[in-house]
């Protein structure tokens, strides 16, 4: 493989580092390879970075290898993008069982983060719908299944057990190519939680206006979706953010106006609309490179999950966020089910909150405070989003860390697969 020195950034663009990057176009080129694999770098922080080392960009290994039309088993190379798979499969009556909020995430990245979607409460995590993973361990490719000791260390395992070259996904049947979406205004926190709890839709997500305070704290829009075969409304054009935006683009007055407009967009009595699947699952992908809206310094996302009994901790967080005036328009609240497939998987039964912040000192200290609240609430933060936590903070959040470390040391004794996040959070160092 040929290597090219490149500066790489996480999606938040606050963390960057330089590495030698290979980008193989065929699986045979990977024989003997021992460097961490990366996907489309849609992780916000440093999960896909390896400063001073090597990384293997998997995005050109993106072919669909086999679809068993009777059972919905799909074998695919690890660099395939979820959004492209969805677009290819829906007309054939199938969809990936779990899709994260961006269609640019690769299958390898979805496995290594055990991602969740808007249907987590019912469907569980990405790794729960896998039949097989083809993994390069110690330089050699081999298929692993759910009984393999590396299975639960690989799913959600941040690429530390090996290079995932292909996987077999168990798809779900999709009766059409669109989504029937019910949208309603939610006036405050308690109502938001109550509606999330009572929703029986397959896909449910709450958008929160993180600038609202007082009685309106937690207000937002609840979106509930079902796969549909209704015909498509005409498609809009995709847009691109041409340059780094000036600093004021997401300043707090702008965000307040945007959020109020977003809220008012949905009529008081609610509405039901038909959406293109991509618009429902990947609402931000239509604006290419939207991460540049935050300017050169980039941004952070804070995402945590807390158990059901601790839901008030999220309200406290939201209060702190609203008071800070630092929030961006993008805040999401979701009910999570218990489904998780790996030792370091993020999901747990409860509620998850995700909020973006510009990369400024005040936001960094606010995020530190939010992380402490998450720990106190017996919750955890998400490695796919984090770029600021410290090693001590995450230890308590991941009770299976020691088991994972043992599996990973056996698979990669020379620590050839370590990445920036693994070093920052000392994930492979025994306590």
């Amino acid at each position: 493989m040929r290597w090219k020195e490149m500066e790489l950034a996480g999606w938040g663009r606050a963390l960057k580092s330089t590495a030698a990057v290979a980008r193989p176009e065929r699986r045979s080129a990977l024989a003997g390879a021992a460097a961490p694999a990366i996907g489309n770098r849609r992780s916000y922080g440093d999960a896909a970075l390896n400063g001073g080392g090597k990384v293997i960009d998997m995005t050109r290994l993106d072919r669909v290898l086999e679809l068993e039309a009777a059972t919905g088993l799909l074998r695919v190379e690890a660099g395939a993008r979820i959004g492209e798979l969805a677009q290819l499969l829906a007309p054939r009556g199938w969809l990936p069982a779990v899709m994260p909020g961006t269609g640019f995430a690769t299958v390898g990245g979805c496995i290594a983060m055990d991602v969740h979607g808007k249907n987590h409460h019912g469907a569980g995590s990405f790794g729960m719908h896998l039949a097989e993973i083809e993994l390069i361990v110690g330089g050699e490719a081999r298929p692993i299944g759910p009984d393999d000791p590396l299975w639960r260390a690989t799913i959600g395992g941040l690429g530390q057990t090996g290079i995932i070259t292909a996987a077999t996904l168990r798809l779900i049947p999709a009766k059409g190519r669109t989504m029937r979406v019910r949208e309603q205004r939610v006036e405050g926190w308690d109502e938001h939680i109550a509606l999330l709890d009572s929703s029986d839709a397959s896909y449910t997500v709450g958008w929160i206006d993180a600038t609202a305070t007082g009685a309106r704290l937690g207000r937002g829009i609840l979106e509930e979706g079902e796969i549909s075969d209704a015909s498509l409304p005409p498609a809009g054009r995709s847009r691109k953010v041409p340059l780094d935006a000036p600093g004021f683009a997401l300043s707090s007055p702008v965000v307040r106006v945007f959020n109020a407009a977003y809220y008012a967009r949905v009529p008081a009595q609610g509405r039901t609309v038909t959406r293109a699947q991509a618009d429902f699952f990947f609402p931000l992908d239509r604006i290419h490179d939207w991460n540049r809206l935050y300017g050169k310094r980039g941004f952070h996302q804070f995402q945590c999950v807390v158990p059901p009994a601790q839901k008030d901790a999220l309200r406290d967080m939201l209060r702190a966020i609203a008071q800070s005036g630092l929030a961006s328009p993008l805040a999401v609240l979701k009910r999570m089910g218990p489904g998780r497939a790996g030792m370091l998987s993020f999901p747990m039964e409860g509620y998850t909150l995700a909020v973006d912040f510009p990369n400024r000192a005040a936001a960094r200290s606010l995020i530190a405070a939010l992380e402490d609240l998450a720990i106190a609430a017996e919750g955890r933060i998400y490695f796919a989003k984090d770029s600021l936590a410290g090693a001590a903070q995450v230890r308590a959040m991941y009770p299976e860390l020691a088991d994972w470390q043992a599996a990973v040391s056996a698979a990669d004794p020379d620590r050839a697969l370590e990445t920036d996040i693994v070093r920052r959070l000392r994930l492979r160092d025994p306590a």
Partner: protein
Amino acid sequence: MTETWIILGATSSIARAFIRQEAANGSGFLLCGRDMDDIAATAADARLRGAPMAEAMAFDARQPDTFAPILDRAASLSGAVSVAVFVGSMPEQAAIDADPAMIAGVVTDSFTGPAQFLTAIAPMMETRGAGRVVGVGSVAGDRGRLGNYVYGASKAGFATYLSGLRNRLGRSGVHVMTVKPGPVDTAMTWGGPKQPLSTTPEVVARDIARGLAKRRNVIYTAGIWRLVMAVVRAIPEPIFKKMTF
């Protein structure tokens, strides 16, 4: 009636983008090259994207005995059979300077191998009076320069060959198109020197489809390279010979 594309060099990054695009349009394929495992994956991908047929076949530009099975298979197909040539190799000029015997291989990969194949299939295309030929050359063939003139010379030879083939097959209604890419972000250029006005395999594939639809003879892709190369060709030799780029 389905069109079947014979793809020479089916492991090429640019070929893959072209195969995907045409699979979605319902074309069938004979995918030819050396890495059969990789081609099997591309064939599966093509079928799932809409190709009614995609078969992997062994092809080595340096082994003309690999040509006959492909020609036979093509003869057995009904409908239009088209050929797209993506084969080519670009070793570093310094390696060639150190081992002049490499020149024969470079010329075979980029010119004489594909030319032999095309010459062998030409009568069938003439008889059928259908099909198209896409030959991928390079802007490097438009003028010899310090950094890659053996590769460039092979591409120049191939371009001249294609121009003659166009002259011949045009009489039977077969469209022959020469494609001259500037730098493309593929395995061939990854890790090499930074290239100006670079494009992607997807853009090249799209430009090929547009060129075919308009029955163009020679296309440059990215399009700006037509202008750039017009300028480069216009530089008088006494000046050009002193330039380094």
